[in-house]
């Protein structure tokens, strides 16, 4: 039981951390064995990120002990952690976009590398060791997310890291990129490097983690070898209740046409034309960058696009900006929650009331009592977990933040709900709730356009699926009767849907 230096690379004991009003960690203990891939799962707000930030030195723990590689760590800084051999690869990667790959790997250590020549030579060697072929002189801003991760891994290796923590690395990866990452993880493991792998995706956990820790509400619920967990048990432990299905039934009985889009052309999109029926969920499937987001942004008036026709309930509408879209009965959950959805320093209440401000304004004056009612109503009906509606929204977990954005639109009841990656980075429990909301919107006579990089999600929730490849619609499918394979082929533009 003793956490000796030999068996465990990291030993966390009874670590607690409180923020004003919230207990983020309530006595967390985890032991990470050397040379293992240790998965950490849990809903957003379970305390995973807080724990990792304590390990790296971004936050200070309140109480408890942390022993890394036989040394007790009291207070540390991110830089000291790096030097000690503990690297973290964050979800929002920490690279300098305007500098080259090599410079990023050895940032601040050019002198030790004896100038740029040494920097690039050593960077090349590191990248080669993980099978990454990116040129070291390329600017980081030109890299894909996957390649940026490789650079981060190379950087971690350059510090002779003994433990690498990966915080939801797969969020923005395609399946091929994911396969490469898995290969590298195995390789690192073979070199004796331990890995903490944080993820929401159970497939990944079962695919390559050795030991799994489940966290919920700032506590460790269970830690045991992967083989002793069943999928259902893991989900139950994560959400604290039994979830029958990962997806609800898709909505039934779509009705007549609600919206038609014609002649949508931009530099990236080519002759986009489709219709949306009342009571249905329409899925848009395609690779990142295929033009899915561009289509909905154009319809919503978020980008300046001319010449296309949008007809809602048989009437032609002109949408020049999001305000027009709102007035025409459209709502949008944007792709990037933090950058496009939330006003982070503002309260939960103000974030929820943003879109419906006209509803509680009289003679130009905001009626606060009505606004408070709106905030309270959405928090209650969507079961948003927050101490109160006055707290800044940045303090909420991802899933709860997303629910606030949904609530923002539900308040004005748009008939057409566009959801761009609505479940990205949120946990199983909150995902299910968002699926149920989609279904409710459709069944109340509205319609949902769903964009998601998670194919199972689109296939399970949609009544119809459009595949998008390279700015064109390459096919229309009934996901209930078509194989995922056929749909994916069309989304990849491999023909088959001529």
């Amino acid at each position: 039981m003793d956490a000796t230096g030999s068996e465990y690379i990291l030993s966390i004991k009874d670590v607690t951390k409180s923020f004003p009003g919230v207990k983020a960690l309530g006595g967390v203990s985890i032991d990470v064995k050397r040379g293992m891939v240790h998965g950490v799962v849990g809903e957003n707000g379970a305390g995973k990120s807080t724990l990792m930030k304590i390990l790296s030195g971004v936050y200070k723990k309140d109480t408890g002990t942390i022993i890394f590689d036989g040394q007790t760590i009291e207070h540390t800084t991110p830089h000291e952690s790096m030097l000690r051999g503990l690297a973290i690869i964050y979800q929002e990667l920490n690279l300098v976009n305007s500098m080259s790959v090599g410079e990023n790997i050895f940032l601040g250590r050019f002198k030790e590398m004896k100038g740029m020549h040494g920097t690039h030579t050593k960077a090349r060697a590191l990248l080669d060791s993980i099978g990454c072929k990116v040129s070291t002189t390329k600017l980081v801003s030109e890299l894909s997310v996957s390649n940026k991760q490789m650079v981060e891994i190379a950087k971690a290796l350059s510090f002779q890291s003994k433990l690498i923590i990966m915080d939801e690395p797969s969020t923005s990866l395609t399946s091929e990129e994911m396969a490469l990452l898995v290969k590298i993880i195995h390789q690192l493991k073979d070199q004796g490097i331990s890995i903490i792998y944080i993820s929401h995706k159970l497939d990944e956990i079962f695919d390559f983690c050795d030991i799994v820790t489940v966290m919920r509400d700032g506590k460790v619920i269970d830690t045991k070898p992967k083989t002793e967990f069943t999928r259902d048990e893991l989900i139950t432990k994560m959400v604290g209740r039994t979830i029958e299905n990962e997806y609800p039934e898709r909505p039934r009985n779509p009705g007549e046409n609600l919206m038609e889009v014609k002649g949508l052309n931009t530099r990236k999109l080519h002759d986009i034309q489709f219709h949306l029926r009342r009571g249905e969920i329409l899925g848009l499937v395609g690779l990142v960058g295929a033009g899915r987001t561009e289509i909905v942004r154009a319809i919503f008036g978020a980008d300046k696009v001319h010449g296309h026709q949008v007809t809602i309930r048989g009437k032609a509408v002109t949408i020049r900006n999001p305000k027009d879209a709102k007035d025409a009965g459209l709502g949008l959950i944007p792709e990037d929650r933090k950058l496009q959805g939330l006003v982070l320093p503002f309260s939960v209440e103000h974030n929820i009331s943003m879109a419906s401000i006209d509803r509680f304004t009289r003679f130009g004056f905001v009626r606060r009592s009505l606004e408070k009612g709106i905030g309270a109503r959405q928090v209650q009906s969507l079961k948003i977990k927050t101490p109160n509606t006055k707290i800044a929204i940045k303090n909420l977990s991802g899933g709860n933040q997303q629910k606030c954005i949904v609530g923002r639109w539900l308040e004005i009841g748009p008939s057409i709900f566009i959801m761009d990656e609505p479940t990205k980075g949120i946990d199983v429990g909150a995902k299910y709730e968002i699926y149920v909301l989609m279904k409710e919107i459709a069944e109340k006579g509205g319609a949902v356009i769903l964009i998601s990089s998670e194919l199972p999600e689109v296939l399970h929730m949609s009544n119809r699926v459009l595949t998008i490849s390279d700015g064109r619609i390459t096919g229309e499918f009934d996901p209930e009767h078509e194989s995922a394979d056929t749909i994916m082929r069309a989304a990849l533009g491999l023909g088959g849907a001529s």
Partner: protein
Amino acid sequence: MKQVGAVLRDYLVLVMILGLALLTAIVQPKFISPANLVNIMRQFGPLILVSLGMTFVIIGGFIDLSVAGTINLVAVVTISLIGPLGQTGALVTGLVLGSVCGAINAVLILTAGAITQAEALFITFGMSTFYSSIALIYTGGSTYHFWDLKKSPDMFLAIGSGSIGVLSVSFVIFLVALAILWVFHTKTAAGRAISLTGGNKTAARLAGVPVSRSIVLIYTIAGFMAALGAIVLFSRITTAAPVIGAGFETNAILSVVVGGTTLKGGKGSVLRTVMGVLLVILLNNTLDLLGVSSYMQWAARGAILVFAIWLDNRKEVQGNQL
């Protein structure tokens, strides 16, 4: 312990004002003489008006360096129109001119697609030069004086040095402006739209909040308030030179930031700006009374600006936890 720290940070400016006032009163009793207090009140006049306008621009996530140019232009145009248009006509024209200058800034910013504070900084810096240059061309470089007018401009003289009861007229103008702007910011939908725009332009736009309108509004308010400041300023000194507004933009930004409105946009208050201006003016007055050279005063001002931004960023770090 943490709570005490947070409260102290919030009211730090107030504590500094009181501390500074107390200290000065002890070291230099002249500080609380009626003459000096009246002096402070008069100095307060133009700067607070300009700063109140600047507060909206900064809450909206932008910045306005053009107020100096606007003040130059409005001052010389207004004073030159007292003869031909009469006092009311000149006053109204001056205020409209200031608002138009502000609106032009906004339209340029929108047309240029400027979304960052830095872009707005350069555009408004260019416009400041532009307005100043028009002021110079208009006057041919000369200065206008009240005593050149055929009839004494009694209304402007009242604005500059009259009083209502114990309060100077300019102070009453400030109180009225403060009340209106505070209600506008905290109680109206348009005020909320400005805050949301400053908090996150993209998110606000995608939620159907009128972002472009907010941008036009903040710059128009800044222009109007700069014009009001210009009028109070030349009325007090009974003279308008086309360089009268120099330094107002930096002092206004300084006051807003020192008051605690964040340069990052979104969060702030006109009430905080009042405290900021008070601190800046008290500091000047104190240093004057203590006989510190004006060169040193510039250094002090620079130091508190840096301090204020440091404080602002510390707040951010604390607030970002969790």
